[in-house]
């Protein structure tokens, strides 16, 4: 398995468009790295550069201590699930999965064994003789995964490999991928839009935006300690609510005020705000939907107007407004509010985030 290292990697298109900017990242051996970011931010491009499918405009890419910028894809010994599957239309599912092994001159019975096993894992054993054109979308995607996991390359690159699978299969696949990672000690670089995948699978998450790395950290860290407003808003679903608030000193307490609502900051926050001179200025307050509770002390209460209610089985999402700011609140199904009502909710002040108005950096990031 392999470690990878990006040094100032940039990718610019002929038309001057820069898709990946100044990318610096070390990926350790056996890491399960998750790449996330909004659609079009350059995730696939990054994978493609690692694979050698795109020339690196500037910067260096090292794999296992070797400079790889000029190495051809087939000499890199990687393996990739394409976002677009890229199955060979003239080969059967079996042949598709066996192709990479055949190219590497793996003996026939070994191929058979590995493909058989992969097909079982992916529940596609009954499809082995079909051509891709006779498969459903999810089945194609599983074949694409299959042709990757049969191999044991230096690193696996996976571009949204589970996007077309149903929830159940997806969670099974998650388990299988985790197993592969554990058992083979594989280095995996994984692009996904699924928050659950990102949070559960990865040893580290890299959040990108417009080709720039925003934060690279463990899932928990990313969730608890987003480096800036973008990361905070991007990770977590439904995403964090942001309000511009005034930081005001009310007696001993530091208050966060917006409209008629006043929240009293906890100690750590207060300290930071005072130290960094935010008192009297406006900052962004970020509260995740699940950090609202039905009950709590009065000083954490805010009122909001319910506009819509989404019942999700285990919980209810209330969409509404506080002073024209849209807000989403996640409460337990016991709460019986209807659209049109004004609902009091209580903010878990230990879990709020605060961001600078201009730089959008997290103020209390530790």
């Amino acid at each position: 398995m392999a470690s990878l290292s990006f040094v100032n990697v940039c990718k610019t298109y002929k038309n001057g468009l820069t898709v990946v900017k100044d990318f610096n990242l070390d990926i350790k051996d056996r890491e399960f790295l998750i790449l996330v970011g909004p659609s079009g931010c350059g995730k696939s491009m990054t994978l493609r550069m690692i694979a050698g499918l795109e020339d690196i405009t500037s910067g260096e890419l090292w794999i296992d201590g070797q400079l790889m910028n000029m190495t051809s894809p087939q000499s890199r010994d990687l393996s990739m699930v394409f976002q677009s599957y890229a199955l060979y239309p003239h080969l059967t599912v079996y042949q598709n999965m066996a192709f990479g092994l055949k190219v590497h001159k793996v003996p026939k019975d070994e191929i058979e064994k590995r493909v058989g096993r992969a097909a079982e894992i992916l529940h596609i054993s009954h499809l082995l003789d079909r051509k891709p054109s006779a498969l459903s979308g999810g089945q194609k995607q599983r074949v694409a995964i299959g042709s990757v996991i049969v191999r044991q390359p230096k690193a696996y690159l996976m571009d949204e490999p589970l996007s077309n699978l149903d929830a159940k299969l997806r969670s099974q696949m998650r388990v299988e991928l985790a197993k592969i990672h554990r058992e083979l000690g594989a280095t995996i670089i994984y692009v996904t839009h699924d928050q659950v995948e990102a949070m559960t699978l990865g040893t580290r998450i890299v959040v990108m935006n417009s080709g720039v790395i925003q934060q690279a950290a463990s899932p928990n860290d990313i969730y608890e300690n987003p480096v800036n407003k973008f990361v905070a808003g991007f990770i977590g679903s439904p995403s964090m609510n942001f309000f511009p608030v005034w930081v005001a000193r009310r007696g001993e307490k530091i208050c966060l005020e917006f409209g008629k609502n006043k929240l009293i900051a906890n100690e750590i926050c207060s300290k930071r705000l005072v130290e960094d001179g935010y008192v009297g200025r406006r900052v962004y307050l970020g509260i995740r939907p699940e950090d609202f509770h039905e009950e709590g002390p009065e000083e954490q209460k805010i009122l909001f107007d319910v506009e819509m209610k989404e019942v999700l089985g285990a919980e209810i999402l209330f969409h509404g407004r506080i002073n024209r700011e849209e807000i989403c609140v996640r409460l337990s199904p016991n709460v019986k509010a209807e659209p049109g009502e004004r609902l009091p909710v209580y903010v878990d002040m230990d879990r709020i985030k605060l961001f600078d108005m201009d730089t959008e950096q997290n103020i209390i990031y530790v």
Partner: protein
Amino acid sequence: MDSVITTAAKEINRDELEKLKRSATQKALFRRRAGKFALVIVNLAMSIFVLLPLLYAVSIAFMPSSELFTTEMNLIPGNPTLENFRQAMVKIPLNRFIVNSFFVAGCITFGQILSCSLAAFSFSFLDFKGKNLLFMVVMATMMIPGEATIISNYLTVSGLHWLDSYNVLIIPYLTSAMGIFLFRQFYKSFPISLYESARIDGCSNLRFIYSILIPLTKSAIGAMAVYTFINAWNMYMWPLLVTGSDRMRTVQIGIGMLDSVDSQSISMMIAGVVMIIIPSISVFIAGQRQLIRGMFSGAVKG
């Protein structure tokens, strides 16, 4: 769960509905069949139009020559005869010629597909300096009139002592700009991600060409192969110039041998033409399988 339709459907009685349904289906089926039928008719008309000269040639080949030279209508031979074919067979060693032609045309076809697909692969999948220039050079070769090079080429091959051998018939034709160009155009619409996927799977370029590219561009290769084969089959000037003996000669020269300056027997010549078309038709029919629709369907998303 009752919708408007089913309730409505329940109101009219079921038989009536069945009838309605059947008639609708029948109408649609009829329309579909009529469409197919029309397609066949149009095709029939078109193919007869295209084939007329050939059919007529076949008909002439079966005519005694006296029937041809008449001002009356003579679409179909009145007294069909095989005499013309027999004569043609007797006059020239057609078997040997056909074997030669097959061998030569086969080698040329194979060689061209190989060299052209390699070059076209490079032109469409790889990036290198001077690509456009080089491509223009290749294109330029297509524009050189054959008459302008034939004599020099003759001198070249005679200098190499290749005259009157298979070499001389095959080697100068082992590649063609047209083939390179054709393949390049086809590769243009080839889903690039298949190439990428193969490369990541550790596939070398050569392997990609033979296990992915060639199977997937079968239709282009089919067209090209048929064309090359038939062109090689139909070569006249060059084989005439560089071969001397009947051992090496090809079928078109055979046709020439049926043509005698002062006493042309047209029907016999046509019989010869018809006879040598038959092998080329068989090649075509064999190659036709490749022209299947929808090669890339379902290969990639988006």
